[in-house]
């Protein structure tokens, strides 16, 4: 067995993750840390230039409020988010991000991100909150600023964080391993900021086999934030609030541009538009069914009703949209020219963001001007920065948060010294890329303030404890190495389970029992209980994960992280005895929304001492008066 060396790093603020929230945290932390002579360290399991959800690029910035031009107010944004999440949101957190996100976007522009503007310098909008960008290199631009702020010597790339290091009730660091070298890492810190993304591939994806791993939401986000915060004993929120996007089927290409720019329709196999034919269903979800825009999950649900009734496939009528635009362009020559331009735009929309969709079109001989493409609801994601809401329960800002929502430092979890941003923090939906970056900045500034005010002592870790963590981390490698000779097929061995096989078990049980694609997103208490039973077996099997090399070791731990996210999710769905987001999941045994009993947060905590789950309600306290909904 290889000898793994141990490297201990002492720092003041430890930032975990390398995506948008972590990059925001880096630039802000570096600024305040310098003033106080503090050290900031960042750890990314990948390379920052292209890590996280924005790796491939984006065509739009999805959160810009426009405060300086008076386009919208903070309250406008809070109303929008509250309605889209069917009433379940932390208004103080959403407002805090909304009042800072514009400055983050202005920073992006300063750093070199091309944001579309007219000749007078006004931003060109794709939607009320969305700006158009040339964003193929969006992440590269943002990462560069973060790297320059921190300095290379303070950044550890290709290091996978396994879990937290605790000093009593305080989070005092993290441990992990290099995915390239035989090195175990122990990071000791005065405060930790976790921004390691959400989770996908917890459920069986539509795209299987070689098709699995389509990026959008990225497959490399495996629940590291959720695991870290759960294992530290932090309170979690909205673990039931997954997100299901409607996308171009199997390659997950975004549909927004088609609706807006190409004026496309989505129709079922009978040529009907479910947004029109199913409109009366929205009355059953009042008051949220009556707001504009229609909440994302309800839009999903209307389409799902068609599919469940056998009226699929649902098609995005790309050919109709393109032909309509082209033929209005004038004579045949002009129409042909316009057609080519539109076709190029259609491809480029994907090439900027989801290359897989362009590849799928190319591989199946799809010309969007000639042939419709199928759209479908994708498998569930855990993405609190988008239209999901799952994450840790964090303090709000002192000036906005009611006293029940404030405990000293904004974005600090219920664990002292553990801060959360982006997908790691919950109940603050619709941050997207820019809002996550802004939240990273907010959390980092608060974390530095925590360090300066509280001045916690460095954690004392004895050598035995370090060795125990190291052994636990590398156990899959050791087990595989010791027992691989027992069979001739490395994937089939009674002594271990490979990460790929483990993942398949997890995805199957979640799909079948917790409302995945093949269950038409429907579940019930009996199904959820069965799911928990199978998760208990899976947890036993997790102790027998086997990994052939460092890369597979990373996969092993990623799937352990997913498993914990899965359990939090199942327990939260079961605890909330209603259906509130029918387009995300539907409880057949509790099919209606129950505002009287369930207009509240469902929170939970995994007790680190007893390993027991605690499930409970927290009240929703409105910071802003509701706008007519």
């Amino acid at each position, binding site marked *: 067995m290889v000898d793994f060396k141990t490297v201990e790093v002492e720092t003041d603020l430890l930032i975990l993750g390398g995506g948008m929230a972590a990059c925001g945290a880096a630039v802000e932390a570096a600024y305040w840390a310098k003033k106080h002579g503090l050290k900031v360290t960042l750890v990314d399991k990948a390379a920052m230039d292209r890590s996280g959800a924005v790796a491939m690029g984006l065509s739009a910035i999805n959160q810009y409020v426009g405060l300086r031009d008076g386009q919208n107010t903070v309250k406008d944004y809070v109303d929008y988010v509250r309605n889209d999440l069917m009433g379940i949101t932390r208004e103080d957190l959403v407002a805090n991000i909304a009042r800072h996100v514009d400055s983050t976007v202005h920073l992006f522009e300063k750093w070199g991100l091309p944001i579309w503007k*007219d000749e007078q310098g006004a931003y060109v909008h*794709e*939607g009320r909150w969305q700006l158009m960008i*040339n964003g193929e290199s969006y992440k590269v631009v943002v990462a560069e600023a973060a790297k320059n702020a921190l300095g290379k010597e303070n950044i550890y790339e290709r290091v996978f964080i396994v879990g937290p290091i605790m000093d009593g009730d305080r989070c005092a660091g993290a441990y992990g391993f290099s995915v390239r070298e035989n090195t175990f890492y122990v990071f000791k810190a005065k405060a930790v900021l976790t921004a390691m993304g959400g989770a996908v591939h917890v459920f069986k994806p539509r795209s299987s086999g070689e098709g699995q791993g389509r990026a959008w939401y990225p497959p490399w986000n495996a629940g590291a934030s959720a695991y870290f915060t759960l294992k530290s004993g932090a309170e979690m929120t909205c673990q039931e609030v997954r997100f299901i996007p409607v996308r171009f089927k199997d390659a997950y290409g975004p549909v927004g541009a088609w609706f807006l720019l190409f004026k496309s329709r989505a129709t079922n196999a009978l040529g009907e538009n479910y947004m029109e034919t199913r409109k009366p269903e929205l009355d059953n979800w009042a008051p949220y069914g009556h707001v504009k825009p*229609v909440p994302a999950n309800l839009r999903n649900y209307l389409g799902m009703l068609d599919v469940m009734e056998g009226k699929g496939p649902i098609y995005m009528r790309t050919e109709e949209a393109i032909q309509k635009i082209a033929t209005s362009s004038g004579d045949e020559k002009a*129409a042909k020219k316009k057609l080519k331009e539109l076709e190029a735009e259609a491809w480029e929309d994907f090439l900027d963001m989801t290359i897989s969709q362009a590849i799928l079109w190319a591989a199946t001989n799809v010309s969007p001007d000639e042939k419709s493409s199928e759209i479908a609801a994708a498998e569930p994601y855990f993405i609190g920065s988008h239209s999901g809401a799952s994450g840790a329960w964090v303090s709000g800002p002192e000036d906005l948060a009611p006293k029940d929502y404030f405990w000293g430092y904004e974005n600090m979890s219920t664990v002292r010294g553990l801060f959360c941003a982006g997908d790691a923090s919950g109940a603050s939906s619709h941050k997207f890329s820019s809002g996550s970056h802004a939240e990273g900045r907010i959390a980092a500034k608060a974390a530095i303030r925590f360090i300066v005010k509280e001045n916690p002592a460095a954690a004392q870790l004895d050598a035995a404890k370090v060795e125990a963590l190291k052994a636990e981390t590398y156990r899959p490698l050791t087990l595989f190495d010791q027992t691989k000779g027992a069979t001739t097929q490395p994937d089939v061995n009674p002594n271990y389970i490979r990460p790929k096989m483990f993942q398949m078990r997890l995805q199957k049980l979640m799909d079948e029992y917790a409302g995945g694609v093949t269950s038409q997103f429907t579940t019930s208490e009996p199904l959820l209980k069965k799911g928990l039973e199978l998760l208990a077996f899976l947890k036993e099997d997790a102790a027998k994960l086997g990994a052939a090399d460092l890369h597979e070791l990373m996969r092993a731990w990623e799937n352990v992280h997913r498993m914990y996210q899965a359990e939090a999710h199942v327990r939260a769905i079961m605890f909330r005895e209603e259906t509130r987001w029918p387009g995300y999941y539907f409880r057949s045994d509790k099919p209606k929304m129950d505002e009287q009993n369930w207009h509240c947060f469902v929170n939970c905590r995994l007790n680190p001492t007893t390993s027991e789950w605690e499930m409970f309600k927290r009240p929703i306290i409105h910071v802003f008066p509701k706008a007519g909904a």
Partner: protein
Amino acid sequence: MSPTDPQPTCPHCGEVLLRLTLPEETSWGGEEALACFNDSCPYFVRGWQWMESQFGAKASYRYRVDPASGRAMPLAVWSRSALRDRIVDQGADGGREPDIESGGDGS
């Protein structure tokens, strides 16, 4: 222009602004706006070249106003016909069809 002007007009070409509903599927969610649909509006015409030269985009923008606040912002369009099907107020010119010229949009 003021949101209370009886016939709000485009500051670039003087044409009456038309009322439209923005697409339901977007975050505007069916919100109403006022926009200039004059294809000869210099702001719209110049926009094609501006967007191509600055951003490599074959698009332009219409002058658009939020009727509630009176705030203006450019509304991205990919063709002269874009959003015409969403006009609800035909205005003085009856919400005329796009000018048909050879060379198509902006060229």
